[in-house]
């Protein structure tokens, strides 16, 4: 033992409930692989994590394997800060591209090399309080939310639920320090109109003003008409929905454990299709291989095997709310029994990730900047048109800035 064990270092950013689930998975991995000395490090989520990972890759002394948000891949120096996966090696350990949704797999591919293997996708979803919705007559006989389609049906449902509680029926993050909720909401609604932000190569703005204004005006309407709480930061949304005071919450699925632990009567479903397309904003956690000057050999093979093992054991991961990207998991009985986590699994075909730009993805410059701008639409400090103009200007400024980690390309 000891000296002849292969060292495998894994950096990730999973805290909270995700952190607990990840720990369980890592413990199981360790138990199954006594020959591997796994050193897992949990780093602080967001910009601090990416700063550290980037610098480690730049020095070529990075960990063997790490976590990344898929939408951040284009800005993360693939080929320079990240090494590509060896697909044959992955296949040897039983992973095939056919086991993943085509869209997510393709997002991990840059210049013909596979830099990221998706672990999950984490979309915006609709949480609903089954007590309140029951009283408002919004549930089917089986206790699930009646299908809602289009803005009129959705606002009618919100009004009905609001009558039961005597307060706004919808909680959505509208503001706060470093707020990104408004961006998530806009991205979801705008994608449902069929609009796009940038072209496929992320070099040019393709915003359709009419569609964007449709989404922005609806956002404005939600708070203006008292359908949604006007002033809630992220913790506030969790607070009011978790407190059982609000019928609906539009937010990320990762709070499922929080509400389950509270004993709240709730369930979850996909974001209703309001504007014609059933899409929802999402990002995706994935595995990457940070750049190592001397990548190869046993530790590299261990990294590939580790990724394959983790993906095949993602039922545990799904408990945290994320939809596993490894499709065979979605058919496992263990996953299907997870309630309400398996309720919205079909969204995996309809997730909308940020355009592949260096400044996009979770905790990116674009999220921080547009989150602040769009927050004003929900709180009422900006008009939809004013926010659109500002968002366009900010996007153009980001497009005009060369990728700082992009090298000469």
């Amino acid at each position: 033992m000891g000296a002849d064990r292969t060292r495998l270092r894994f950096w990730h950013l999973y805290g909270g409930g995700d952190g607990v689930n990840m720990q369980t998975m890592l413990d199981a991995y360790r138990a199954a692989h006594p020959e591997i000395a796994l050193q897992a490090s949990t780093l602080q989520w967001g910009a601090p994590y990416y700063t550290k990972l980037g610098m480690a890759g730049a020095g070529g002394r990075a960990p063997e394997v790490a976590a990344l948000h898929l939408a951040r891949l284009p800005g993360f120096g693939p080929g320079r800060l990240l090494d590509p996966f060896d697909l044959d090696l992955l296949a040897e350990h039983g992973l095939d591209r056919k086991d993943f949704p085509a869209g997510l797999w393709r997002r991990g591919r840059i210049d013909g090399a596979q830099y990221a293997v998706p672990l999950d996708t984490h979309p915006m979803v609709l949480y609903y309080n089954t007590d309140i919705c029951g009283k408002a007559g919004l549930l089917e006989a089986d206790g699930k939310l009646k299908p809602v389609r289009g803005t009129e049906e959705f606002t009618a449902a919100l009004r009905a639920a609001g009558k039961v509680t005597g307060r706004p029926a919808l909680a959505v993050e509208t503001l706060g320090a470093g707020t990104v909720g408004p961006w998530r909401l806009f991205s979801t609604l705008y994608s449902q109109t069929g609009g796009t932000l940038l072209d496929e190569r992320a070099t040019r703005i393709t915003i359709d003003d009419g569609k964007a204004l449709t989404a922005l005006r609806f956002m404005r309407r939600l708070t203006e008409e008292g359908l949604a709480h006007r002033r809630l930061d992220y913790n506030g949304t969790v607070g009011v929905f978790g407190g059982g005071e609000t019928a609906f919450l539009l937010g990320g699925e990762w709070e499922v454990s929080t509400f389950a632990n509270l004993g709240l009567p709730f369930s979850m479903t996909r974001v209703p299709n309001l504007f014609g397309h059933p899409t929802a904003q999402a990002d995706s956690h994935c595995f990457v291989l940070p750049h190592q000057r001397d990548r190869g050999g046993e530790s590299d093979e261990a990294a590939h095997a580790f990724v394959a093992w983790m993906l095949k054991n993602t039922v545990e991961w799904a408990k945290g709310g994320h939809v596993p990207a490894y499709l065979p998991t979605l058919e496992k009985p263990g996953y299907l029994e997870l309630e309400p986590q398996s309720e919205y699994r079909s969204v995996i075909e309809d997730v909308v990730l940020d355009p592949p730009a260096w400044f996009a993805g979770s905790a990116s410059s674009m999220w921080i900047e547009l989150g602040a701008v769009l927050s004003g639409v929900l709180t009422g400090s900006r008009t939809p048109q004013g926010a659109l103009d500002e968002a366009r200007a900010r996007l153009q400024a980001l497009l005009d800035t060369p990728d700082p980690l992009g090298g000469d390309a």
Partner: protein
Amino acid sequence: MTATAPTTPVPPGRAASRTGAGPLSAGRRWTEHGLVFTAPFLLLYALFLVWPVLLGLKMSLGDDNIAGTDSEFTGLDNYAEALRDPEVWSSLWNTVWFTLLSTVPLVVTGLVLALLAHHLRVVRWLWRLSWFAPFLLPSGVVGLLWLWMIYPSDFGLADLLLNSLGLDPGIGWLTDTRYAMLSIVLTTVWWTVGFNFLLYLAALQATPRHLYEAAELDGAGAWRRLVHITLPMLGRTTAVVVVLQLLASLKIFDQVYIMTGGGPDESTRPILQYVYEAGFTGYRIGYASAVSYVFFALIVIVSLIHLRITRRFREETAK
């Protein structure tokens, strides 16, 4: 980046004793000994201040990224971009606006508290302690404490109190562009007024008693003693306090970062936060360095004014 915490208090008058060539500078040996004694400080000073400043200057002239790879010399491009960047100007204005808003109450409140503590005869230690104690708290504690008092989502203690008085809260302490900066100012005054209080209190206690006795003999009342003796005698302290306060307020970062993250709608984002975002979220270390040099220019101007003022006082005391 502590916002208002100059590490060494500068008592009024100390600057004067350093001026001119005293007897100490006559012998060369003393200089040599002095170097030995100051070497530990100079070393750290060079390592953690001079070197980063020079390195920052070099980075500001290139397109350095956070990973430190492939940087190229780009001359003054970053500066040209910074001067054209509306976000530089808006965040710089936020910093200046905060400085203007905070300096007056911090100086005036500090003076009033010092006068109170100086004249109150009962439990003097309690006043001194309670007015100075907040200054000893780290910025993170202060930020979170106030955040929970004026929470953005109507959960805060302040809203709760207003509610119990039958008033509709709904004041966007930190979320309404009209109030957010004022809330930050309020927090900052509570936190750092103790430092100005202390400087004023020291100056009050150093005011010669015989002036008051003479004035009383001449029949001057409390108000006239305040206006004609106390305030003029505090003039020099006020000049020091104001300049130290300006410099401290210009460094605003912590409270804003914790309490509003620069929001709502970037209305409280100070220039230092923009530098942080450009460098650590946007990875553009070169550009971030250039923006901080633009800010540095502003600080230098304020410092030069400070130097002029202290020099004038020195000349006055020399006469």
